[in-house]
């Protein structure tokens, strides 16, 4: 008998165990070649049996060595539960099973902090699920018909001036614009959030961009997509479709060289510029694109050599809100001739309201939107410690910011967009509707898009290997072999279908409360079954 080395990693230590039924296995090898993690390998098993062929015991011995699939027992190759092996197995011979009694969290820090992508695996409680649309039009105000009435589902993107500051002159009983006002675009209240080329595979990024263009051009829904940090292909910068794109500038300023150079060749203005200060998945932490994912095209777009690319956690050289407003907004606005709205994206935090207040008082009236990203957001690579333990839920932050503006009579002047966990349960329309009633002008979604493309990751620790370059679905990797797994057209179609349904569902929620335009701030339409939530958000408590 072998001595037990208790420090050795065993199958029972890992989060996912491979359940394998040797009798069903045809030894086709598909699972092994599919597993991007190297969590399974071919091996042999000695099968010794004593059996009897007579009615009375007449023991015979058989000694066989059979080929089998074995789980690799080390942390580096620990199964991520993606289920790709199960998908390809022709005989249902193999599948990952969650192992609740694992010790992986304890054992996995030998090489420094754990890095991964995806959402937080903790803090999965959702405020939105305790809120119900409770104010239904019945007889005093007839509900609308979601199929027959026209609905005006649009949200502002850009700095909205108070009525008294509008540059109006009165001539012959008519108002006319004496000069230009800051640009405001009326867009669909669902924005495709910033996920960069580099973080996503080109195919995944392309699928989202295709869905965006299709929704705009064929479905009449002005959905906007943010490029994410790191720039975008020159072809797109010089195309008509740029008008659907929000260019992002983050702390690394990656890709901006290219964008600035493309300026003279741009046929149309982009939909906007989004300055990313922080994101919900890793608030206060910089972006991280690991060398494994810096493929040739990424090097070209970002203008960098192959290396791990980390954006600093802050914009170097900008240490206050005033500075951001002055330098970045003024220069970015100027770069696009003050024709393009410039918005800011921050991770939700205890200080979100102070930031919003400051932006509202910005003397240049130049901030075109405030995007707040909550703790349940996330796609890109981050330290697990950040993903799981830092950040702020989004719902009350949106509400607090809205109410702070209400107290000053400034609501609506800097459009509020909230994200981070929108559509986490698969029902983005309900989430968006509730956020809007609480004061958001719209919402942004990222993770949901990758899930529509086929990502299997979730907030219960499934997959979330987005940082490794080994994404089993080809969504978050640059490995050409893996990228091919993603069908761009089908992926784009999935997104389009989802958004069209989102639109229908939003109407289904607007109609019963009798509203044909977005119910921004209509908190009276909501009730909560949780007293504390009702109190915090200032909505009715019901039980």
């Amino acid at each position, binding site marked *: 008998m072998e001595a037990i080395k208790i420090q050795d990693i065993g199958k029972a230590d890992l989060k996912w165990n491979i359940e394998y039924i040797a009798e069903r296995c045809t030894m086709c090898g598909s699972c092994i070649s599919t597993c991007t993690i190297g969590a399974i390998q071919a091996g042999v098993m000695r099968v010794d049996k004593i059996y009897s062929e007579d009615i009375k015991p007449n023991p015979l011995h058989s000694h066989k060595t059979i080929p089998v699939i074995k789980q690799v027992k080390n942390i580096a190759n620990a199964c991520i539960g993606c289920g790709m092996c199960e998908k390809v197995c022709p005989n249902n011979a193999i599948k990952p099973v969650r192992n609740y009694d694992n010790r992986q969290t304890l054992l996995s820090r030998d090489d420094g902090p754990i890095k991964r992508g995806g959402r937080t695996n903790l803090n999965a409680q959702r405020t939105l699920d305790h809120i119900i649309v409770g104010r239904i*039009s019945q007889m*005093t*105000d007839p509900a609308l018909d979601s199929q027959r009435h026209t609905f005006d589902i649009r949200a502002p993107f850009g700095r909205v001036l108070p009525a008294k500051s509008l540059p109006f002159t009165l001539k012959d009983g008519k*108002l*006319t614009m004496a000069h230009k006002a800051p640009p405001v675009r*009326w867009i669909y209240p669902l924005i495709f959030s910033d996920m960069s080329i580099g973080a996503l595979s080109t195919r995944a990024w392309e699928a989202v961009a295709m869905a965006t263009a299709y929704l705009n051009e064929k479905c009449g829904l002005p959905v906007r997509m943010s490029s994410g940090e790191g720039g975008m292909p020159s072809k797109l910068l010089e195309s008509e479709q740029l008008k659907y794109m929000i260019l992002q500038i983050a702390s690394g300023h990656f890709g901006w060289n290219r964008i600035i150079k493309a300026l003279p060749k741009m046929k149309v203005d982009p939909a906007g510029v989004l300055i990313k200060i922080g994101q919900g998945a890793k608030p206060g932490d910089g972006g991280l694109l690991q060398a494994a994912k810096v493929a040739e095209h990424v090097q070209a777009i970002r203008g960098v050599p192959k290396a791990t690319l980390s954006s600093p956690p802050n914009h170097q050289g900008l240490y206050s809100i005033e500075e951001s407003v002055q330098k970045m907004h003024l220069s970015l606005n100027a770069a696009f001739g003050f024709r393009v709205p410039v918005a800011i994206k921050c991770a939700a935090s205890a200080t979100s309201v102070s930031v919003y207040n400051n932006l509202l008082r910005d003397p240049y009236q130049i901030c075109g939107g405030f995007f707040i990203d909550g703790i349940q957001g996330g796609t890109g690579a981050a330290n697990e410690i950040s993903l799981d333990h830092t950040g702020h839920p989004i719902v009350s932050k949106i509400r607090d910011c809205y109410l702070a503006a209400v107290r000053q009579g400034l609501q*609506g002047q800097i459009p509020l967009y909230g994200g981070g966990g929108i559509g986490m349960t698969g029902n983005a329309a309900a989430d968006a509707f509730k956020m809007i009633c609480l004061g958001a002008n719209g919402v942004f979604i990222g993770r949901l898009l990758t899930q529509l493309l086929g990502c299997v990751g979730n907030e219960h620790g499934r997959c979330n290997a987005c940082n490794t370059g080994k994404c089993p679905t080809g969504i978050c990797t640059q490995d050409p072999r893996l990228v091919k797994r993603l069908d761009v057209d089908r992926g784009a179609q999935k997104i389009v279908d989802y958004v069209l349904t989102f639109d229908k569902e939003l109407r289904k929620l607007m109609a019963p409360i009798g509203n044909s335009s977005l119910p921004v701030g209509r908190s009276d339409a909501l009730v909560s079954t949780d007293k504390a939530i009702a109190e915090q958000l200032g909505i009715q408590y019901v039980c």
Partner: protein
Amino acid sequence: MCRIGSIKSKVAFSPSKALYLMLPQQEGHDNSGFAMVMQDLYGIFTPYKDKPLLSLACTQRGAQMVEDFMDSHNFEQVSEWIPVPNDQPGLDIKAMPYYIFRNYDYPEYYRDKPMSEKEELLLDIRLKLRQILENADEGYVYSFWPDVLTLKEIGDPRDIATYFRLWDDNGCLMAKSIVVQCRQNTNYDIVRYAAHPFFLQGYTLCANGENTFYTKNKEFQKSLHRGYVGFESDSQNFLYTLHYVLHELKWPIKYYKDVITPLPFAEIEQREDKDVLKAIRQSLAHLEINGPNTIIANLPDGRMLTCCDSKKLRPVVVGRTDTTVAISSEVCGLNEIMPDRDMTKDIYPNEREVVVIDNDLEVQRWKQ
């Protein structure tokens, strides 16, 4: 659903006419109240057209408080009408002890000031009085303005009229313009201040409908103007927005509709003045009114208007003769007071339509 109506005439008429306009529409009603604002007054008020008239309902103590306050603010009383009620048994009315309609002269140092300053003073005085009476729970003050009388009461409109002797056309109470409402109360508590029409600085407004954007309207209006107070009814928002657009922003009347029921973006894009319409829609998104509603309003210059919501979920009809124009929730009201009119000329405003009646009773209509 409340019923609303208004009459504008070249000849002064008594409030009974407004009651005749309203009563046929009362079928199925809970009779929770009656209220009216009379403008361009005649009868006993003829000599005091330029003197602000205070309309209030209060207790004895409230009356004393008002008197003390007005004295200490140097307002000089020039006339008073205290209706002697016909308090016969069996009337369905929850009357207050006193109804005071009193003309004042401005404090001496105010008499030569421009009207704009006087307007601010009158508003401040009314707000202050309201606060005093409200804090002490001793009464309600509805309007304080030259040539404007407001009466609001809870009960059966017929009985309210009997109580105030409004059926006796004795020439005492006369006006050329009345806006009126018979209530169907949808609030659980019957609050006197919640009765339409509402009045603010020369603007009178009555609405029939539901403002589903009440919360966001209210949250926004609260910070726009000191006079936007109360919010006892979701329809007060209509008045405050009317006042804001015309009095504060000084935009032409046609833009009121662009604020409360803005055109859909797709339609705005087709318009030549799209820059202006878009700017209005985005800056005043919180003043939009969504939900079924019809509005009747009177402007400080005497014009009367009506407009409908964007989906035409609440009815209204305008009828006219040579001397009179009347607006009513239902046509049966018009049939009662002007049976000989040419009914083919009745106007049923469409969705997003505005109808304005000027002082020569010319009727203008425009689609937004």
